[in-house]
């Protein structure tokens, strides 16, 4: 069953010169993005900075207003709800941000941070509340000795545990993880990933996982959606996409992340060029200026997503085209 279904989500931001002036340009942050997450699974949205992955997640959380499109969460269309009803539904969707130091109020103690969502949303007695705070901290692996400390006394990994405890306070069904380990060292990252995986199994959580690190995504995701400049270029089961990426951008992304395996030295490939501006994105396929297999049609016509096996790919290339030679080799 799909817990969350996003259809044709579009988010545009208007650039205005001066207060109240009319908009002079539009940032096409997210364009016609559709995806769904099965209950209890993890969907990873991956892509480079500015591709719209965080904006898509913020739209799901109702933190930005979509320009168009529908978001169905727990079988309700969020766009049609009034604010009181929406507030009730959104209890079940929580978020953990990238930088725990800026997402936690430095003046609040751990106890208050974790109790805050409970006080705001759940009706419980003081005793129930204390018990809930303690059980949440235990769940994320923090001892009671930390209860009255403030966020500056903690390491990044511990802060991220507090942020996770806070997100789990209201027993949500969906947790949006926006680059939850990007600010952490690898040894700390491993512990947070293990914790997130364990919590998902124990509590049946559904994750929308935003990340740029493909190795992290590979360890967590059941399915994967690759974004480039506001569009999803390829999506499907993670094993399938990692095993045989179809879209030239997915191939390039996989090939350009440096593998720590010394056996794989020299297999890294380089994709030329920079990501264009989302203000005036290229016509047709937005990847065409960097694509090594560009055809005439790519410069004019947007490739509609079509099914290839269990996947959706937005590319004009024939399905049997060999995209594995994307990019030029790095000298080693």
């Amino acid at each position: 069953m799909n817990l969350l279904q996003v259809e044709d989500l579009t988010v545009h931001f208007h650039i205005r010169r001066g207060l109240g002036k009319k908009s002079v340009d539009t940032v096409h942050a997210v364009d016609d993005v559709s995806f769904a997450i099965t209950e209890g699974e993890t969907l990873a949205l991956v892509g480079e900075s500015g591709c719209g992955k965080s904006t898509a997640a913020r739209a799901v959380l109702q933190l930005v207003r979509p320009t168009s499109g529908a978001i169905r969460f727990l079988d309700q269309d969020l766009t049609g709800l009034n604010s009181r009803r929406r507030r009730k539904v959104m209890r079940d969707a929580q978020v953990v941000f990238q930088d725990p130091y800026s997402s936690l109020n430095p003046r609040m103690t751990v106890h208050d941070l974790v109790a805050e969502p409970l006080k705001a949303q759940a009706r419980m007695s003081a005793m129930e509340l204390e018990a809930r705070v303690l059980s949440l901290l235990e769940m994320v692996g923090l001892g009671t000795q930390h209860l009255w400390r403030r966020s500056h006394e903690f390491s990044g990994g511990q802060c991220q545990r507090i942020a996770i405890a806070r997100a789990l306070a209201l027993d949500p069904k969906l947790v949006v993880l926006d680059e939850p380990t990007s600010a952490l060292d690898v040894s700390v990252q491993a512990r947070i990933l293990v914790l997130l995986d364990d919590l998902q199994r124990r509590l049946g959580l559904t994750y929308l996982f935003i990340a740029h690190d493909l190795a992290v995504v590979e360890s967590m995701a059941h399915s994967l959606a690759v974004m480039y400049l506001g569009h999803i270029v390829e999506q499907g089961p993670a094993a399938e996409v990692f095993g045989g990426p179809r879209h030239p951008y997915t191939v390039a992304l996989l090939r350009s992340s440096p593998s720590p395996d010394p056996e794989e030295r020299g297999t890294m490939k380089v994709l030329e060029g920079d990501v264009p501006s989302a203000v005036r994105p290229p016509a047709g396929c937005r990847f065409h200026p960097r694509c090594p297999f560009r055809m005439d049609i790519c410069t004019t016509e947007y490739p509609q997503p079509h099914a290839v096996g269990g996947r959706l790919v937005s590319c004009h290339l024939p399905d049997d085209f060999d995209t594995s030679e994307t990019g030029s080799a790095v000298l080693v």
Partner: protein
Amino acid sequence: MDELLRVRGLRLQFRSMRGVVKALDGVDLTVHDREIVGLVGESGCGKTITGLAILGLLQRPQAEITGGEISYRGEDLLAKSDKEMQDLRGREISMVFQDPLASLNPVFTVGHQIGDVVRIHKGVSRRQSREITLKALAEVGLPASDETLKRYPHQFSGGMRQRVCMAMALACGSPLLIADEPTTALDVTIQAQILRLLLRLREELGVAQVIITHNVGVAAQSCDRIAVMYAGSVVEEGPVVEVLSRPRHPYTIALYECLPHGHTAAELQTIPGTVPDLISPPPGCRFHPRCKHVLDVCRTTKPEPVQVGGRHWVSCFWATGQESGTHDREVVS
């Protein structure tokens, strides 16, 4: 291959409000001509401090080098005056930093900033410095045109800014480049472009490099040799393929097993405990409180680097005891 840079047993401390931070405690690093050496470790392990210490960029008296040696082409850098070091920086050893936007001056054009470096170090005319600047821009893959010279840092993308920083670092023909997290602020496809550029600079200009990185993948793909740091010490140093395929130090082994590369989250290994506070670091081997294989001797004595293979050194009683086939507490202690 000639030895370019040699750091031996470097110890360094900072004075802080809370006490003396023993930031470096035994850093050994050797860079030969045309060699790319990776300095790998997690935040706070002293990688950047090592780079800054080599260039003499640490502020005295807060930072104090308490032991060890740093030499460049046989010359003792620690004995040099500030003036001599200033002359050396940019001409012999250069550095690029993680955040290219923060290391460029936003109010001067790129041509102006690179030209300044060239004129100061080479004492050439404006016209000559312009020529040299254009050549440096071409070497790092930027368009060598007047238009590039007249642009300001904010008019470039992140990857191009890092190229500008490299052009500035290399404009005077430094044979050694210290790159501090040169790709960390960049997206993966741009990171790959910059790594390729670093390798090209070695192929085409013979620039030796120290690449400081927390990303084991970056080191694995671009370096000849790596030095792994933990809490201020180099714990293992050797050829990159050898160190990563047969790591000896328990920290290197644990660090490698933490990488999510090709593992599901449920399979990931973790390192228990946290990095020690360097104001009161643990005695003996600084990794011992977190080490799976801790021996009695580790708690009291700091292990010295022991050669375990061709140019492969490990500072660990457990690893070197095991090597000789007499892995036994009695024998080791």
